[in-house]
C-alpha cells in the first residue's frame, strides 16, 4: 500500500491536474483511502489508472455503503489495485441523499468494464444511479421489487420465530 507520505504525494499530484477533487485522505489500519468529490470521480479514476507513475489499472471491487446517521450518507467505494507494485488504494465518493430522486454519480464502466455488474448491484441495493451505465436495472432482486434493501433504514424483514411451547400455552 502507498504509505502515509506516498498517499499525500498522490493527493498533491491529483490536486495539480484536478484542483478540488480530493477532499480528504485517510490512512486507517494500514489501508490508504482518498475521499473524492463525486463530480470529479471519473477524472480522478482516469488519472490513477493512466498517469505514468501510477498504474491502478485493476478495479478489485466497487461497492457502496450507507453511513447513516452520518452525513453525507452514501459512499461509493472503489478498491483499486496496482498490480505492478502490488498496492491497494481505496477511493471513496460521498453522496448525500437528495430530498427527492435518487443520488447520482457518473458510471465508470468505460474506464473499468468490470464495474458493470457491480454498479448494477449498488443500484439494486442502495438506489444509487450511475449516469451513463449501459443497462442500469435490478440484478439480484426481482425486477418489480420496491425499495432499496441495503439502506440502513430499510427493515430486515422476515418473520418472528413461532415456538410451539408459546403457541400451545399462551395462544
Amino acid at each position, binding site marked *: 500500500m502507498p504509505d502515509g507520505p506516498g498517499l499525500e504525494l498522490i493527493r498533491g499530484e491529483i490536486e495539480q491536474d484536478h484542483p478540488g477533487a480530493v477532499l480528504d485522505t485517510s490512512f486507517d489500519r494500514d489501508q490508504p483511502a482518498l475521499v473524492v468529490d463525486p463530480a470529479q470521480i471519473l477524472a480522478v479514476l482516469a488519472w490513477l489508472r493512466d498517469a505514468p507513475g501510477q498504474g491502478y489499472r485493476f478495479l478489485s471491487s466497487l461497492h457502496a455503503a450507507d453511513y447513516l446517521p452520518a452525513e453525507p450518507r452514501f459512499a461509493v467505494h472503489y478498491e483499486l489495485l496496482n498490480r505492478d507494485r502490488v498496492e491497494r488504494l481505496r477511493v471513496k465518493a460521498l453522496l448525500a441523499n437528495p430530498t427527492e430522486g435518487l443520488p447520482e454519480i457518473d458510471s465508470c464502466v468505460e474506464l473499468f468494464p468490470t464495474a458493470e455488474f457491480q454498479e448494477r448491484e449498488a443500484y439494486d441495493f442502495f438506489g444509487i444511479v450511475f449516469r451513463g451505465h449501459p443497462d442500469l436495472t435490478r440484478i439480484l*432482486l426481482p425486477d418489480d421489487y420496491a425499495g432499496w434493501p441495503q439502506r440502513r433504514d430499510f427493515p*430486515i*424483514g*422476515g*418473520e418472528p420465530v413461532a415456538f410451539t411451547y408459546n403457541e400451545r400455552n399462551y395462544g
Partner: protein
Amino acid sequence: MRDRQLRARDMLRGDLEGEDLERYVEERVVMTNFDKMLGWARANSMFPLTFGLACCAIEAPISLVTARYDLARFGAEALRASPRQADMIILSGRVSIKMAPVVRRLYDQMLEPKWAISMGACSSSGGMFSNYAVVQGADKFMPIDLHIPGCPPRPEAVLYGFTKLQRKIMGNPDQGWRQRYNAAGTEEWARGGPRSEPNPEAAEAYEEARGLIRA
C-alpha cells in the same frame, strides 16, 4: 412337515375341499390388494427431479447419488431433468423470493402422483435467513410432504427422510389434504388443458424479452 406333505398330495389329487382348500391357498399365495402393490411399486422407483438450489444441493442430489450414499439402493437413482418425467422434487436450498414462482411452476408441471421433500432448514422454514429475501418455508406456496432438518442435513439424514417418505407412499395416503395449498387446478398442461388457449400476454412478454436483448 409331514402334515404339509399330506396336504400337498391331496391338493394334487384334487382332494382338498372347502375350508382346507382356502387355508392352503392362503398359506401359499401372497394375497394383496392392488393399492398396496401400487404403493410399493411407486415408493421403490421414484424419479427425483434434478433440482438443486444452494448448499443442500451439494449434499443431495449430488452427494446422494454418488457411491458412498447411494440412492440407487432405494431405486431412485434415475434423476430426471424434466419435471414432466419426475415424480419427486427435493427442494434443496433456500428459496428466494425471485425463485419461488419458478419452483411453484415446476411443481405444477409435475404429474400426479407427485411428492415434495423440503430438505434442510432453509426450505422448511427459512432457516437462519429470517430476512426480506428468503421465503420463510416453502410451505408458504406449495404443499410439502416431508421436511428434513439440518443445515445441511447429512446424506444419511436425507436417506432416513426418504425411507420415511417411502413408507408414507406405501401407506397410500389420501392426497386431498393438498387442497389446502390450492394445489388442485394449478397443474400446467402442455396442450388441451385449462390454459391451452393462445395467450396474448405470453406473446407480448416474449416480444418484450427479445426487446431486452436488442436494446
